[in-house]
């Protein structure tokens, strides 16, 4: 059974704005019955450019219904500019979060919104933009790239959770891996702004706390941050690590690698004498 928040359950059991807006001037339809979820969004945009009414029709699971209900609530009274800025993460946040395997329900909402807004602007439906990567669920490279970028995805599993791509026969997994690598590469320079010393220390502490110390503690060891001088991270081993002959290896292979991955690629870990 999925762990849904109370808000998801509440929106699922008592969906807001189910149905169709009469005289809608913005209609977005995404998904299909074959894929297991579909969403039709109808909006009435007033002369002042504000969304006066929003309704949905959904074929899908509890979280798809809740996401659509949440989206219509979020849209009412918003200007088109404001509506455009709503992301799938906003929809998930509105509901107090979604199980990660269900994030594609929020993506479906965002896609229906995009489709409705372009329909309002009189643009041709943007279906089939890009080329299909996942044949099972008809997901294009554009959609996958967008999800990777907007949600900072790093693995095939995450891409499947957000877009469904790769959740069927799995033959597109290599193609998805390439897309992830491509987007990551594009974003790499932008993602590494120079850190201030304070930021660096904070991130090192956080990484130690969250990623490193729990696994050392499992083996009865521990580590403590003593100081950070430039890119030199000075640490002291504790517990089993302090007497373990392999601790030097642990420091470089595990601790340093992790800090380089999570914080800054040029960090060097040094052990201070006891």
């Amino acid at each position, binding site marked *: 059974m999925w762990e849904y928040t109370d808000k998801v*359950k509440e929106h699922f059991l008592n969906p807001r704005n189910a149905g169709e807006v009469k005289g809608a001037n913005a209609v977005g339809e995404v998904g299909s019955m*074959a894929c297991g979820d579909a969403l039709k969004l109808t909006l009435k945009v007033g002369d002042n450019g504000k969304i006066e009414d929003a309704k949905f*029709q959904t*074929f899908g699971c509890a979280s798809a219904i809740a996401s659509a209900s949440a989206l219509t609530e979020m849209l009412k009274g918003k200007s088109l500019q404001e509506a455009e800025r709503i992301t799938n993460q906003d929809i998930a946040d509105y509901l107090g979060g979604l199980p990660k395997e269900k994030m594609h329900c929020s993506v479906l909402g965002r896609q229906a919104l995009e489709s409705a807004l372009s329909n309002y602007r009189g643009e041709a439906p943007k279906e089939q933009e890009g080329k299909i990567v996942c044949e*099972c669920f008809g997901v294009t490279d554009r959609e996958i790239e967008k999800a990777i970028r907007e949600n900072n995805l790093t693995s095939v599993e995450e891409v499947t959770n957000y877009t469904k791509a790769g959740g069927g026969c799995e033959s597109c997994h290599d193609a998805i891996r390439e897309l992830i690598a491509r987007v990551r590469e594009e974003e790499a320079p932008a993602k590494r702004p120079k850190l201030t010393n304070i930021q660096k220390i904070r991130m090192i502490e956080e990484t130690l706390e969250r990623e490193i110390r729990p696994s050392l503690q499992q083996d009865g060891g521990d580590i403590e941050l003593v100081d950070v001088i430039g890119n030199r991270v000075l640490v002291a081993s504790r517990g089993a690590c302090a007497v373990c002959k392999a601790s030097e290896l642990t420091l470089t292979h595990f601790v340093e690698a992790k800090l380089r991955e999570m914080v800054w690629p040029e960090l060097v870990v040094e052990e201070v004498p006891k």
Partner: protein
Amino acid sequence: MKTIYMDNNATTRVAPEVLETMLPFLTDLYGNPSSAYSFGGRVARNIRESREQASALLGASPEEVIFTSCGSESDNTAIMSALNTGKDKAHIVTTRVEHPAVKVLCNELVKRGCRVTEVPVDRKGELDMDRYKESLTSDTAIVSIMWANNETGVIFPVEEAAQLARSRGILFHTDAVQAVGKIPIDLQQSAIDMLSISGHKLHAPKGIGVLYVRKGTKFSPFLIGGHQERGRRGGTENTASIIGLGKACELAADRMDEENTRVKSLRDRLERELLNRISHSRVNGGGAPRLPNTTNISFEFVEGEAILLRMDEFGICASSGSACTSGSLQPSHVLRAMGVPFTMAHGSVRLSLSVYNTDEEVDEVIDKLPPIIEKLRAFSPFWKPEGQACASGT
């Protein structure tokens, strides 16, 4: 809120009589059956009785019964044993609708160099016997075909299939987890070499199973250790559960009639009334021989998880073959193998009954389910209220 439990193919309640026989073995009678003193020896005697009860339900001899930890262990043991004893044979014949305990194991064995043939089923869910015959080769180490399907309840002609395997010198295993206790089984009269049972599907607790291995069948243990189960399954006996399973087998034999009369008529009424009250619905596997307790109904234009969670609000427990409940993004492999269209597969609900279900409970489901489907359809984009529903996704 009262729980209306109609998910007995997933698991069952422990029968009170079963619990009662188990309790002494969780309190005073904790001796190890392998010990030399009588405090342990008497437990060994109780296990022997339990083995007799289990074999009686199967029409087998007690020494052909090996106690395991679950149905999955029994399935794994049977298939791995056949590969280990089958010289260089590396071909397995199974079906497209097996339980994951067999299906996923076979997928894994393909990675290790085995060849696997999955025999298809037709739209009714029935096994393609011609394709089955064609699939048997001189390289086939084992056939593993479920007796009855857990999702649809469709019963396969395993006795006939076993005969065909035997005539070619091929071992035959059946996962009978859903069939035992619901349909009569007489292994003495059959060509089945190995058969799996799961305790918690027949009112024994979880964590106990049986593998039947016909006398004279070459066998290689899966769990290697002590001399327990005559060296065929190492590990100290799960005494309380073994005793419970024995009692459950005895009860199952006594209640087989009730399963096929009272429970069947509850199932039939439930199915008939739901079909009557809900348009655009149909039974998956309805045209084939089926277990008396199972119905798998598809409601078009709505999604299964949404149905289940709304039923949950009334305390009704059932399951679905929809993508969202199958743990993957695609609907159940069983419904797909049967060629059930996506529009139907996503909205499937399985209701599986037991002797503990009542007329009142069936009334309650008949009363609560139609409005749930109606409400969900009311905001489905594919549902046209005039009844002129048209599927765009097919």
